[in-house]
């Protein structure tokens, strides 16, 4: 049922996206025809692209294509949008996945350490490390680590997505922020679990600290952590624009920037719709988990 509810939302999003993209100043016909094009050439390009029709009509042309699964063709290169996106989606998913994985592992470890040694030096050190992760402009991190690890040490390639090594630095730059969020989240939800009555009981029964943390408390704090991880995954796919630019990574982020620069409407629309769709789906799943954990709050 709830999935059916998503369809009107997507249609609204598609409308907003369409209008938004077309309202932004910029004329793909002019960009396509070139700097020294004459007025006639620009007009011709415009009519070929259907850009001279009223906006609403353009929207309906677009939507009627969308309903039969036709995302249209790129204004810039003429290639099919579906093809362009499918070329780029795998590297992007790979990058997102790599970032999430290391961020979750490291983040949870720091979180667990911090919660176990709450308010002592491992906690303060851990939280400081984590917070540092969200305190740096990620393009700056990117440029600095390229200088150190590619140019000076020669360990990793500077960019691209040619081999698995080229995923290391961008996923580091991209995951740092998520690592911080997950660490803090794990810590606070674990601290809360550790205070629960039955944990106290366990402690009074003489169970070791390790077995309390890993055996009982962690289990209870996992679901919220998964939730937050899921949410971050949603942000990542669309949020890697800057990092992808620094590492000239052939993913959806750089595609988005290129398409915006060229006002390649069909590609921009398809990308935002894709981001919106996965964001809404992730949210939807998270909502269900959330409702499951805390039945008092209903989210519909």
């Amino acid at each position, binding site marked *: 049922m709830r999935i059916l509810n998503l369809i009107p939302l997507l249609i609204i999003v598609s409308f907003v996206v369409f209008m938004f993209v077309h309202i932004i100043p910029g004329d793909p016909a002019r960009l396509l025809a070139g700097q020294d094009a004459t007025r006639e050439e620009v007009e011709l390009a415009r009519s070929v692209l259907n850009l001279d029709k009223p906006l609403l009509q353009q929207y309906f042309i677009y939507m009627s294509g969308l309903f039969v699964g036709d995302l249209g063709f790129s204004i810039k290169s003429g290639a099919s949008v579906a093809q362009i996106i499918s070329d780029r989606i795998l590297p992007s998913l790979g990058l997102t996945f790599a970032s999430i994985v290391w961020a979750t592992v490291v983040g949870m470890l720091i979180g667990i350490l911090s919660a176990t040694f709450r308010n002592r030096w491992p906690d303060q050190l851990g939280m400081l490390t984590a*917070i540092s992760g969200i305190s740096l402009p990620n393009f700056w991190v990117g440029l600095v680590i390229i200088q150190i690890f590619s140019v000076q040490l020669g360990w990793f390639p500077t960019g691209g997505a040619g081999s698995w090594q080229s995923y290391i630095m961008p996923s580091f730059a991209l995951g740092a922020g998520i690592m911080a969020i997950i660490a803090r989240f794990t810590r606070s939800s674990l601290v809360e679990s550790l205070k629960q009555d039955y944990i106290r009981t366990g402690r009074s029964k003489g169970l070791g600290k390790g077995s309390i943390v890993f055996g009982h408390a962690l289990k209870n704090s996992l679901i919220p952590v998964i939730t937050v991880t899921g949410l971050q995954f949603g942000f990542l796919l669309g949020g890697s624009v800057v990092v992808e630019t620094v590492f000239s990574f052939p993913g959806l982020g750089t595609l988005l920037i290129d398409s915006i620069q060229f006002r390649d409407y069909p590609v921009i629309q398809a990308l935002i719709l894709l981001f919106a769709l996965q964001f*809404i789906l992730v949210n939807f799943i998270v909502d269900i988990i959330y409702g499951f954990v805390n039945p008092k709050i209903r989210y519909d």
Partner: protein
Amino acid sequence: MNTVTMESPKDLPKRKSRMQKIVKEITRKKVTLISSIFIMILIIAAIIGPWITPYNPAAPDYSNILSPPSLAHIFGTDAYGRDIFSRILAGTQISLSVSVSAVLIGAVIGTILGLVSGFFGKLVDKLIMRVCDVLFAFPDIILAIGIVAILGPGLRNVVIAVAFFSVPSFARLVRGTTLEVKEQLFVESARSMGASRRRIIFKHIFPETLPSIMVYFTMSIGTTILAAASLSFLGLGADPSTPDWGAMLSTSRDYIGSAFHVVFFPGLIIFLTVLSFNVFGDGLREILDPKLKD
């Protein structure tokens, strides 16, 4: 969650002592203390900075470009021979006011939306949350590029763009707290005593959402500084000649291989500032968030 119910509206005079308690808590934890001192220094620099710079931050000196840190220029000079330290000092005001005002706008609008959404529920709630979903679903950078493209470049529009995408986060946060608080007994009783809706929202619910708003506000200042810097990175930020930190960082990035100090110092100051706000916000959360109270 328990402490929330413990406090009734009649306890208002207690607020003051709560403030004192917060200050005491802050001074107790070392990292929080250090970060709050740093924030103090930043605020002072923001107020008097432009008047105490050792050099004119805008005056070029073409005979002395890209010189590394020295006694005369402790952070070195940039591509036009301007003193980097002076620029950072003078830029504190710009950078802080951009982020504070952006977060403030976002927080005010978001809070109102969240309160309304959480309190009234039903269709209003649905509508506001769907709008937030749509906003969330847009990648921030698209929104920012769009807004800057429509409004034109400049600091004021950067503020608007950044404020725009902090609205939905505040709205969600406040809505969540509102939902919880709404169900609490004392609101029920206030309602039965015939208080107006507006009174309930602002006198009873809003104060309870304040702690989490404050925490999120502090942390958002940091994120906002980074967001503004990212906009500058994409060439859509402030007039590049203003000593805004993000602008300094992004215009200097071409020198990363040849004159590292030009990139390093603006990056460092951004890092320290954002870190301070985040650490401080974290400390504030520890103190204010009842969930973490022992």
